[in-house]
């Protein structure tokens, strides 16, 4: 069976002439759970948005399964931070997951049996069968996150870009979401999730990307998740003065 690659080639995104993401190149394979790590302002959300065409790319291209991806695509699903969603929206979990079929049926296509089956499967995979008819406002944080993920699953995406999916979740909810992500990777999908809690990275992910404007490091947890890369990512100042990228800890000029 061919394993698809998500190839990111020389990606640069610029805001007001300052590079938010700077010449990032990566070759990611499906079947992995990848942590995207970096301090605040490192460009993690910008990186995700560039992959799905929500922000314009200054340079670079995105290729998945041998096909160039310029914008919105069924193969790549983007889930923004939970805080941007209005969870009081009058819709059930099932209704929200059904929205994921939009790319398959378009503005006026019929919502048929195949689509209903995809929605049922997505809800079952995320252990939300019993909660399908519940309003999203009545779901817990972890359940909301899984419902959001189920929506992307209903899209039949193969790459899932999750922006801080574990933020605000307690240990049980984190474990359930972690298990859901593990299932996706085992089924052959690629999950990239930005994450802040370094302690839980080895438990939840099998690969790691360190990003701070530019690519600091990428690799399997055993090789790339180490003190040196953490220090480089969180203590490095990529650009100085007014164009400095934020670093979470002490600032020191990058001399590499």
């Amino acid at each position, binding site marked *: 069976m061919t394993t698809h690659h998500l190839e990111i080639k020389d990606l640069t995104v610029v805001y007001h002439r300052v590079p938010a993401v700077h010449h990032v190149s990566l070759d990611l394979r499906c079947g992995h759970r990848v942590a995207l790590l970096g301090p605040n302002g490192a460009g993690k959300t910008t990186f995700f*948005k560039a992959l*799905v*065409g*929500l922000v314009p790319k200054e340079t670079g291209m995105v290729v998945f399964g041998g096909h160039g991806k310029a*914008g*919105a*695509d069924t193969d790549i*699903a*983007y*889930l*923004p931070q939970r805080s*941007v*969603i*209005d969870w009081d*929206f*009058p*819709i*059930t979990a099932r*209704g*929200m997951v059904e*929205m*994921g079929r*939009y*790319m398959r049926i378009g*503005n*006026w296509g019929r919502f048929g049996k195949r689509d209903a089956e995809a929605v049922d499967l997505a809800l079952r995979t995320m252990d939300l069968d019993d909660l399908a008819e519940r*309003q999203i406002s*009545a779901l817990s944080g972890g359940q909301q996150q899984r419902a959001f993920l189920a929506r992307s699953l209903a*899209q039949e995406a193969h790459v899932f870009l999750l922006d801080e999916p574990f933020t605000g979740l307690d240990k049980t909810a984190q474990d359930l979401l972690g298990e859901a992500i593990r299932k996706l990777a085992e089924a052959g999908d690629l999950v990239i999730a930005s994450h802040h809690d370094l302690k839980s990275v080895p438990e939840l992910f099998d690969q790691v990307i360190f990003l701070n404007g530019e690519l600091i490091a990428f690799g399997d947890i055993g090789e790339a998740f180490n003190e040196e890369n953490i220090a480089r990512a969180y203590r490095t100042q990529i650009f100085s003065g007014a164009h400095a990228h934020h670093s979470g800890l002490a600032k020191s000029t990058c001399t590499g």
Partner: protein
Amino acid sequence: MLRALFGCALIGFTNGVLSSFIVLRRLALMADAMAHSLLPGVALALILFGLAPVNLFFGGLVAALLVGLGVQIISGSSRIKEDTSLGLLFACAFSLGLVLLSLSPARVNVTHYLFGNILGLSDDDLWIIYLISCIVLPLLVVFQRPLLLLMFEPSVAASQGVWVKPLTYILMSLLVLAMISSLQAVGVVLALGMLIAPAATIYLCSDSFAAMFWGGGVIGTLGSCAGLFVSYWLNLPSGACIVLVLGMIFFAAYLFSPKYGVLSKFLRRHHLHEESLARWEERTGD
């Protein structure tokens, strides 16, 4: 009176249906600003081309679009945020409209444009309202699927291929059209009432977007017609009565809605959701 009633029903339904978008996307300030921004366009059209409804329609449309464009230009090219530029431009536009109306050679009753004059509806006015409803309602139905995605969350919708920008412009244009139609019923100052109250009422009674959409239209129609009857019988300003009746319907829902009414919450046991209630009942049953 019959003409006014029919006009009221159409205006109420169109604005009621659109109100679901205003409530869910928190566009109340923007909607109020747009309503006020119609005035200079209406006034200028009146001065240059006369009182014909079609002139006022295009004048209002151009003014609202210019203010919308101005907001984007100012907030996009300076440190001024969108809500500030919106507030500033609509206040200036409204003031300009008042000044222009005062300079108008034709004898106009300014209060009719500010607060409505549904009983003064002419056949031409009714045709315009009918035409607007025939544009707004079918377009909302045709685009209901992408609009639902847009309402839920624009960035997720964009990542799924929804044409967010064109759809937003279409929605804004339909909003301007609905406001122009409600000029006659409630005027620019009170137009917001018809665009907020219906969907806000249903939001307290239902968990379905479809219910908000169609139910908003029904509430808008019933409330507007009831307000018109009240103003006719009690000889009170019609625009104000329409908005007051819609407001009273909202407050009734706020208090008595079985789902989300304040009194229902007070009378119900204090549990977060059904699972918690079921566990409590199990425990107390033991």
